[in-house]
C-alpha cells in the first residue's frame, strides 16, 4: 500500500482507512478496462489450451501472449496518438491512410535488388535504409501537419478535415504503387517488424519507447494539462494564454507520426506494402481502444495507459476469435458485442439505471 506522505502537505491519500482505499481502487478509472482484459485472458485460459505457455526457441520467447503483444504493436501506436487527439476534442480518421502511405514510401524506397557478391546472392536496398525510414516518417509528419492546419488554422471539423486525408492518403499510396503490392527484399528492414531483441519482438521495444516518451512528455511537461484545458474549454484556455492552435497542430502531427511508425512496423512485418489493405480501418480500432480505455470522446481527461489496455483488449479478442476457429465473418459481430458490453459497463447512465433497478 502506498504510504507516501509529504511532510507539510496534507495529501488526501495520506491517511485513508482500508475501506476508503477499497473505494478509491474501485473508482480507479483503469479498473473497468483492466477487468475486461482480465476476463478475456481468463476466458482464453479456459478455452485455449496452453494459452499462458511461454517457451524459448532459438533464444526467442514464443507463446500466445507474446504473439498478441507483437500483433497489437501497430494498434497500440495508433491508439497513443489518437488519445491525445481525442483529448483535444478532436478525432483523426486518417490514421489507416497514413499507415498505408508511410509503409508504401518506405517499401518503395528500400525495395531490394539482388547483387551477386563473390558468388553469394545478396539483396541491397535501393535507398539507404536510414534515408528511406526518415522519408517515410517525414511523409507521416507532413500528413499530420496537413490535418492540424485544417483543424486549427482553417477550423474545419476534425472528422471532415481528416476525412480528406483518409481518402487522399490511401489514394496517393495506391497511385504510387499502381495498386500493386510492393515487395521488400532487404533483410535488415524486416528486423523492425519481425526481429527479436533480448528474446522479445523488436516491435514491442518501439511501442515501449514511444509510450515512455509520450508519458514523459505528458507528465513532466505542461503538455498534459494544456491538452486537457484545450479539450475541455478552448476559449478559456486561449484567454489563459495557451497557444491553442499550436497545441492542436501538435497533437495531429503526433498522431500521424505514431501512424507512420505503425506503417513501418506493418510493412516490415509482412515484408511488403499493400496500399489497398495496410492499416485499413485501423483508425476505428484506435478510436475504440481509446474509448475502451476510458477516455471520453468529449475531450479533456485522458488516459494513455487506458488506451494501451484498450488496444490489448481488441487484439486479444481478435486473436481469440481466430484461434477458436470462429469463421472470420463472425469476427466483426463478436467484436461488436464485446465492445458493446465494455462500453455499456462504462456508461454512467447505465450504471445509474442498474442501481435504480436493484434499489
Amino acid at each position, binding site marked *: 500500500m502506498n504510504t507516501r506522505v509529504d511532510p507539510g*502537505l496534507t495529501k488526501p491519500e495520506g491517511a485513508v482507512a482500508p475501506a476508503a482505499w477499497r473505494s478509491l481502487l474501485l473508482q480507479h478509472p483503469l479498473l473497468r478496462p483492466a477487468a475486461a482484459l482480465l476476463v478475456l485472458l481468463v476466458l482464453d485460459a479456459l478455452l485455449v489450451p496452453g494459452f499462458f505457455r511461454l517457451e524459448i526457441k532459438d533464444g526467442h520467447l514464443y507463446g500466445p501472449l507474446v504473439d498478441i503483444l507483437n500483433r497489437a504493436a501497430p494498434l497500440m501506436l495508433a491508439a497513443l496518438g489518437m488519445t491525445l487527439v481525442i483529448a483535444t476534442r478532436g478525432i483523426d480518421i486518417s490514421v489507416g491512410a497514413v499507415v498505408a502511405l508511410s509503409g508504401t514510401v518506405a517499401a518503395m524506397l528500400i525495395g531490394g535488388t539482388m547483387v551477386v557478391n563473390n558468388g553469394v546472392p545478396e539483396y541491397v536496398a535501393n535507398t539507404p535504409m536510414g534515408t528511406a525510414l526518415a522519408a517515410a516518417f517525414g511523409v507521416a509528419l507532413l500528413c499530420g501537419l496537413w490535418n492540424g492546419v485544417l483543424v486549427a488554422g482553417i477550423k474545419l471539423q476534425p472528422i471532415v478535415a481528416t476525412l480528406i486525408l483518409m481518402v487522399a492518403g490511401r489514394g496517393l499510396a495506391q497511385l504510387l504503387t499502381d495498386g500493386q503490392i510492393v515487395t521488400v527484399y532487404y533483410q535488415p528492414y524486416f528486423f523492425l517488424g519481425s526481429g527479436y531483441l533480448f528474446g522479445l519482438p523488436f516491435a514491442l521495444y518501439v511501442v515501449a519507447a514511444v509510450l515512455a516518451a509520450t508519458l514523459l512528455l505528458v507528465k513532466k511537461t*505542461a503538455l498534459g*494539462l494544456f491538452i486537457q484545458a484545450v479539450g475541455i474549454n478552448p476559449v478559456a*484556455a*486561449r*484567454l*489563459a494564454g495557451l497557444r491553442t492552435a499550436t497545441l492542436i497542430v501538435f497533437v495531429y502531427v503526433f498522431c500521424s507520426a505514431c501512424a507512420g511508425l505503425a506503417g513501418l512496423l506493418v510493412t516490415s512485418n509482412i515484408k511488403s506494402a499493400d496500399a489497398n489493405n495496410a492499416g485499413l480501418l485501423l483508425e476505428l480500432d484506435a478510436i475504440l481502444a481509446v474509448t475502451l480505455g476510458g477516455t471520453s470522446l468529449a475531450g479533456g481527461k485522458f488516459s494513455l495507459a487506458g488506451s494501451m489496455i484498450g488496444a490489448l483488449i481488441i487484439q486479444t479478442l481478435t486473436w481469440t476469435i481466430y484461434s477458436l476457429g470462429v469463421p472470420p465473418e463472425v469476427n466483426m459481430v463478436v467484436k461488436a458485442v464485446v465492445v458493446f458490453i465494455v462500453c455499456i459497463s462504462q456508461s454512467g447512465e447505465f450504471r445509474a439505471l442498474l442501481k435504480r433497478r436493484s434499489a
Partner: protein
Amino acid sequence: MTALSGSTQPVLEVTGIHKQFPGVKALADAGLRLYPGEVHTLMGQNGAGKSTLIKVLTGVYQPDGGSIVLDGQAIRPRSTQEAQALGISTVYQEVNLCPNLSVAENIFIGRYPRRFGMVDWRAMRRQAAELLQRLQVGIDVGKPLATYPLAIQQMVAIARALHTDARVLILDEPTSSLDEAEVQTLFGVLRRLRAEGMAILFVTHFLEQTYAISDRITVMRNGEREGEYACAGLSRLALVNKMIGAPADADEDGTEAQAGEEREQGEVFLRARGIARKGALQPVDLALHRGELLGLAGLLGSGRTETARLLFGADRADAGSVEVEGRRVRLANPRDAIAQGIGFCSEDRKHEGAILPLSVRENMILALQARQGIWRAIPMRRQQQLASDYVKWLGIKTASIETPIGSLSGGNQQKVLLARWLATEPGLLILDEPTRGIDVRAKQEIMDYVSALCRKGMSILFISSELPEVLRVSDRMLVMRDRQACGAYRRGELDETSVLGAIAGESAGEGNKDTAKDTAKEGA
C-alpha cells in the same frame, strides 16, 4: 401583503429537507412556503444552499430527508421533467436554450405540437407568439434565438417554463446578466404573472431587486432556513445581517469608509490611444496609473467588455496603439498581453474562465504555466504551495485543492480565477463583472482584495453593472455609451446622479463630456 391575504393555503410547502454530498452537508433542515400570487425571494450567501434547494425542488437532486408538499400532495420529483409535469417550472441562471434553433422551437422543444403525426410548425409559431405576447415581448419567433440579446433569451426561457401550465415558477438568478431596463421589463412580466395567481420563487443576490419585487423573503444560511419575513417589515440592514449572520456593521457604510481612503498613485502603467474595432468599439483613449483603480461603467453593450478584450488581446484592435510602461506594444492575442503583465477575468466565468472538470490547483496555475511555456513545468510541490496559499488568502471554500472547480460555488470559482491571474503577478488586472452572480459576502471580500491589490501598486480596470460598487472603489471612472467613451470622472467628482445621467445619455452626461475628455487626457 396580497399574498398573505389572498390565500391561506400554500401551493408549495417544503420542510426539513436534508441533503448530504460527499464531505459537505449542503442542506440541513431547509424549507420554504410559497403562496399562490406572490413573489417570494430566496436569499442567502453563496454556499447557503439556495441552488441545492432549488435542485431538490426541480428533481435534479434527491433529498436525503424532508417533505415537499404541492397542493396538499406529497411529491418527490425524480427528474426535471417530472417536476415540470407536476407544475414546477424553472428558469436557470445560465440560459439553457439552443441558440441556433428558432425562438419557437426553443419554447416547444421536446413537445412540439403535432398534427397527423408531424410537427405542426404553424401552430407552434402561433402559440409561441401568443406566449411571448403574454409576456409583452413582440419578436419574430421564426428567427434563431442567438439573434436576440440575452434579456430576450431570458424571456424566451420564461415563456418556455410557462408553457407547461406551471403552478410554481422558479427563477434562479434571472437578472444577473440583464441591464436595468431589462430588469424592469422582467419585473413587469413577473407582476403580471403574480396577478394571474402564479407562485413565483425568485433567487437573486441583488438587494434592490428583492425589495422592488418581493412580497416575502426566505433567508437561508449554512443550508438551513434562517427565517421567513414579510418584505415590508425587514430593513436592508437586517436582511444582510441575517444572511451573513454577522453583526450589522458589515453594511455598506463600513465599506464606503474603508474604500474612501485615497490611494497612492504611481506613473502610467498602460496608455491606450484611439483603440478601436470595427463594429465593436469607437476609438477609446485611456490611461491607467500604477496602483490606480479605473472603473468602467455603462450598460451592457456600451463597449465596456469590448474595451477590456482589446486591451487583453482577446480581440484584435484595428486602430490605435497601446503603450505599457512607455513602450509601444502589440497585443495580437492574450499571450502578448500576459507577457506585458496584463491579466483578464472574463465576465463569462463558465465559458471563458473556469475549466470545470480540472482541479482548483490546475485552474489556478494555468495562466502562470502558460506564460512559463510548456517545457518548464511548475514543480508539483510549488503548484500545491501556490494553490493552498491562495485558497487560504482568498478564503476559498473547497474540500481540497484537487477538487474540480466545477463543484465550487460561483463566488469561490471567481476567487480561483482571481488567483489564476494573481499568480502571474500582473501589473494590470482587468476584472469584467467579477462580482456577478455571487453573494454579498464574497462580493465584499473580492472588493477588499481588489483594494488591497491597488495599494500594492497593481493597476486595476474594473467593470461592473452595479454602479454603487464601481463608484465606491474607483479612483477614476470612465463611462461608456454606444460603443464609445462618453464621460470621465475623477474621485471627488463621482456622484451617482451625474454618472447615471452619462450612462443613460441624458443632458447632464452630455454637458460633462468636455470636462470628461479633459480628465481622460489628464493621464497624459
